[in-house]
């Protein structure tokens, strides 16, 4: 049973550098220049799951991303890990997209790929952190969706049996292909690319499609196609400074407990 798998990936600023992202209060825009970018860590679990499924069942893996030209780096990394095709949906008209507009662009790109059995996504991206693109992509494509999958199995008759995480447990879920899944980090340990994988990756072509090539109506994507807009950004000031005690532990603790009672913190 060969599986044609699509994995949605995204390039995000390196989380360790988030605090360097500065706000220009005048233009109300954020400056991301010079911040190193990486392959979104949750997406690595989706790629790994696809690679394991391909190793088991055969088939093809296509990595798809909507991003700026710099995102070609992660498309290359996807090749280094072993995907068969890397496709970057790239066009200035995609900029400013919220999750719905992003899902639309991805859907149109994926529809060009022919028969797809399984679409895998990470649970969220480290920058936007909404986790909305996967489920919205499924609805737009008309595919069923299973979210937060921590374990999955393809059964003989071509159905998926999954453990769908919920608080304090999971739901046992069964679904028929084709479908869209978001996978959690519990599902696997992502592999690193090997040296040979890296050597071969730079020789492979990254397919770059813009709105013309995809035949998309610009009104459906980018900022125009986004129902939500950013209306403002502000820096957060922390302020709650209360009393600071110092000195002999016994004395200090006694004062502290008295204060906690006053604040109604102790019952």
């Amino acid at each position, binding site marked *: 049973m060969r599986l044609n798998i699509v994995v949605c990936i995204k390039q995000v600023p390196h989380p360790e550098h988030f605090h360097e992202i500065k706000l220009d209060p005048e233009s109300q825009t954020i400056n991301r220049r010079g911040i190193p970018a990486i392959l979104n860590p949750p997406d690595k679990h989706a790629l790994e799951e696809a690679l394991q499924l391909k190793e088991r069942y055969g088939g093809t893996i296509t990595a798809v991303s909507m991003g700026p030209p710099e995102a070609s780096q992660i498309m*290359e*990394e996807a090749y280094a890990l072993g995907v068969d095709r890397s496709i970057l949906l790239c066009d200035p008209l995609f900029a400013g997209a919220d999750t719905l507009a992003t899902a639309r662009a991805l859907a149109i790109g994926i529809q060009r790929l022919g028969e797809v059995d399984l679409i895998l996504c990470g649970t969220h991206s480290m920058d936007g952190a909404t986790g909305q693109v996967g489920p919205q992509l499924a609805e737009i494509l008309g595919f069923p969706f299973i979210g937060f999958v921590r374990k999955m199995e393809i059964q003989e008759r071509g159905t998926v049996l999954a453990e769908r995480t919920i608080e304090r447990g999971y739901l046992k879920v069964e679904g028929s292909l084709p479908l869209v899944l978001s996978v959690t980090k519990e599902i696997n340990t992502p592999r690193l690319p*090997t040296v*040979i994988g890296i*050597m071969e*990756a730079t020789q492979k072509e990254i397919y770059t499609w813009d709105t013309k090539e995809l035949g998309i109506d610009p009104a459906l994507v980018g900022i125009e196609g986004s129902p939500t807009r950013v209306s403002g950004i502000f820096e957060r000031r922390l302020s709650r400074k209360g009393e600071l005690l110092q000195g002999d532990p016994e004395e200090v603790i006694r004062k502290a407990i008295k204060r906690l009672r006053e604040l109604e913190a102790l019952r």
Partner: protein
Amino acid sequence: MDFNLTREQEMLRNMVREFAEKDLAPKALELDNKGEFPADVIKKMCELGLGGTLGKKEYGGSAMGHLASILSVEEISRVYPPAGFCLEGIHSAIALIQNAGTEEQKKNLLPRLIKGEKIPCVGVTEATGGSDPSVMQTVARPEGDEFVIDGRKVWITLAPVADIICFLATVDGKATAFYVEDGTPGFEKGHRADQVGLKSVPIGEFAFTGCRIPRSNMIGKEGGGLPAALTVFSTVARPNVAAIALGVAEGAYEVALKYCKERKLYGAPIANLQAIQFSLADMSTEIEAARWLCYYGVWKADQGKSVREVAVDTARAKVFATEVAIKTCVRATQLMGGYGLSPEYEVIRRLQDALELFPAAGTSEIMRVTIGRSITR
């Protein structure tokens, strides 16, 4: 002049950095405390292809080249220098066999070494001195289609765990390269050295007593041992050790820098104090100088320059980088005050590791001899 790494080299560096930070960093203190050979780590490194950056593709390598191979050693050593040191031993043996060996030897040995299925070592140093190979006392006496080996080697990296032991022995007074497989009668592994640093790298001795090996175990020409060994030292072993030193210095510097940015005295981080900044500035400058010396020598090797040309630059890289590593680690421990002397905070262990790098692949004095002779010729 393009100082940029190629995209492949960049991706390699990122991959090794991620491996080092995810797989090595959490275990580093524990591995050092145990002092055991990290066989799992070495196996994982080889599975990722880090053992085969110099190996040709037909033997399972990637032939990425010398710069790629030291980038991986540098990144590993930033986090866990003993693994970098083991990688150096593997690179050197693979280079020796690939440069000088017969096709049959290469086919037989290289794939297994590159995959990490067998561990190699290269033994030159003897009790009478490593810096002076002319007084080598290990002898290989030809007898029909065999050689009979007698002698002893000391301070050999990886010897206690090696499966394939490459070594030099004299045939008619001329040093010749051979290999022996562990378990061969007459070959015995001896005492494992007790080290102050690089604790989990097994370093030890081995001895031959009437050990018989087939003629086909000779690597290269009879009497061709020294040139073969010198090529490996100049193009692989020294630059690898220099890269380890660079990684050690970088690791110690990064820990100290982070500490100085967080540690507050007089109401502000000590990194704001000029005296501290001067110290950090010097460390940073020396590390960058070491870096470019390291990269330059192996870049020349990748460009196909002669061994003699490459040898001077790798000698410079080795002597400079190892001395920078010591200085950087000492400064780092001083910047961190009490924490600098606690093993949990790393820098003191880095200093111990750096000290072990002095005699490796040739002492600083020998490096200066190499450089001095070349410039005054």
